[in-house]
């Protein structure tokens, strides 16, 4: 086992090309990210890299994965960090259950762990006897903010549809629930709710077809901005300017759409800062600060034309 760990650590060392001797006085933070093919995590990674340069009082080793479902890579990364003896691990789990065991091992090894972006599963944590705070945005609350903006613009009883993210993904579920909260509160008429797997082209197709089935749609709630862009393009092709669209994430591409009214609103969860903020929290604990407790909510903000 030790030999295997050693081999794994050696491989990681080569892969990360951070084999240089670490400065003894600086704490080392291991950052475990999700898919770097995703713009959102790529920006987060860039934010973390800028952060380490700006602060300069710690060392950062960042590991990403090939795709959203590459759980194995994350588990290996945590194990390698344990072997290396980093001071803190800051992790965005790819799977809220699969990561509980490795995180528990890290804590047992005396490493301070901060869980951000996606919360580890409460039941799995209880079963493993693990207590760990979560640092992250309230996806459900954020989606409700966007949904409420739509509902207030349309009024009670308006006819709406939801474009969902990947079925089974935690944030997709939370955002759908947030939209459904809005539907319930404003007594909206939910005509249809379908996934477009976070993707622009698929959202464009799925929404065009929904619009055919329900020409009387008044509002669209898309679980991310990439899909909202696809919806906006579908509305343009159909020549409809009377339908309001809200999204989530505030990617740069929707800036012009919100400015000229093609989109009503989106939600910014300041993803670029999220990893950096979590690193700050981790370094606070390493420096002797109190452990985090419960849910440390990060800032979310509704973005409209105003």
């Amino acid at each position, binding site marked *: 086992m030790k030999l295997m760990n050693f081999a794994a650590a050696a491989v990681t060392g080569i892969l990360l090309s951070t084999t240089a001797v670490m400065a003894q006085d600086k704490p080392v933070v291991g950052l475990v990210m999700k898919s*770097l*093919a*995703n*713009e959102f995590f*790529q*920006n987060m990674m860039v934010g973390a890299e800028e952060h380490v340069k700006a602060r300069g009082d710690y060392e950062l080793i960042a590991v990403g994965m090939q795709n959203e479902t590459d759980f194995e890579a994350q588990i290996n990364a945590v194990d390698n960090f344990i072997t290396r003896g980093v001071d803190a691990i800051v992790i965005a789990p790819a799977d809220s259950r699969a990561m509980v065991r490795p995180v528990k091992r890290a804590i047992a090894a005396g490493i301070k762990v901060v869980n951000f972006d996606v919360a580890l599963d409460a039941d799995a944590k209880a079963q493993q006897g693990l207590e760990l705070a979560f640092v992250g945005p309230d996806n459900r609350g954020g989606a409700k903010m966007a949904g409420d903006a739509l509902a207030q613009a349309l009024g009670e009883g308006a006819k709406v549809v939801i474009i969902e993210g990947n*079925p089974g993904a935690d944030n997709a579920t939370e955002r759908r629930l947030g939209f459904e909260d809005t539907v319930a509160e404003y007594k909206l008429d939910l005509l*249809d709710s*379908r*996934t477009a797997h976070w*993707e*622009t*082209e698929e959202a*464009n*197709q*799925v929404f*065009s*077809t*929904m619009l*055919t*089935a329900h020409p009387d749609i008044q509002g669209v709630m898309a679980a991310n901005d*990439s899909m909202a*862009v*696809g919806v906006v*393009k579908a509305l*343009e*092709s*159909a020549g409809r300017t009377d339908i309001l669209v809200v999204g989530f994430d505030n*990617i*740069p*591409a929707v800036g*012009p759409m919100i400015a000229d009214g093609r989109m009503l609103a989106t939600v910014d969860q300041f993803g670029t800062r999220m990893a950096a903020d979590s690193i700050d929290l981790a370094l606070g604990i390493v420096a002797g600060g109190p452990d985090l407790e419960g849910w440390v909510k990060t800032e979310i903000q509704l973005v409209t034309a105003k």
Partner: protein
Amino acid sequence: MSAHETQDVLAKPSPFSFKSIVNNAGIGLALLVLILFFSVTTEFFLSPNNITNILTQITINLILAVGMTFVILIGGIDLSVGSVMAFAAVIAGKAITLSGLGTAELILLAIAAGLFAGLICGVLNGVLSAYWALPSFIITLGMLNIARGAALQVSGAQTIYSFPYAFEEFGSMLIFGVPVVFLLALFLVLIAWFVLNRTVFGRLIYGIGNNEEAVRLAGHPVFWYKVAAFTICGATAGIAAIVYMARLSISSPIAGIGFELNAIAAVIIGGTSLAGGRGSVIGTLLGAFIIGVLANGLILIGLSDFMRQMITGVVIIIAVILDHYRAKLSSR
């Protein structure tokens, strides 16, 4: 491979032969049944708007499937087209957002860049698999990763946006309710049909799929024909990338994941044999329609996303089973 077939390699084109008509008629009939079913079950299906929708929705898959038909006809497969499309879109997106050029120059540059990017990937696929006689399955699986990685690397995993207005217009332009991008796809189908049925090159593509050795012994440069088939497939991925950009006004490096499978499905449902040598691009057109009509109609009748996925899978399997019987029929 019978002796009969080796002589048949350079036989006269047979798009209107009894066999070919029966083959395509079967698929056409299946499509007709689907259309009838959906027009009875939902009032919206045959509305002009919905027909425009379906034509728009099948365009990208149809363009990819036209190129895929060439590769499958020679007995190969190209798993990389979705990634190559994303790579070409990113390259074209970088080109079209350059500063200091006029709109027309930018658009032309982007189209050239996208086409070139797709073409190069196709040439690589063809040369690597044909030169070492390696399974194209593996080579294009490698290219799937290379092109996707390149798309992410070049774009820094960021979506590229804010294209010239004229370019975006092209993506949603209609002529009598028919999307211009669909007409472009249809034009590609016609060219492909002509090339496959009316040129020596086309007949040799079938020939290679039927009996590669016979074509080689007849003194034809099989290597270059294979490279050409993959190059055509790469080029169509480049064209699909331009259409994707024009329609959605963005270039996303994660676009097109799984598109290769839809394109392969359209070709196979269209009656082209995975073993190569048999099939037609008209079948591919019908296959793309069947997939598009299914996806559209099943949403209209309110079926859940998961059921929709299952039914699409069932249709693919039925198509392959039908192909099995067709193969038996035509070898008699």
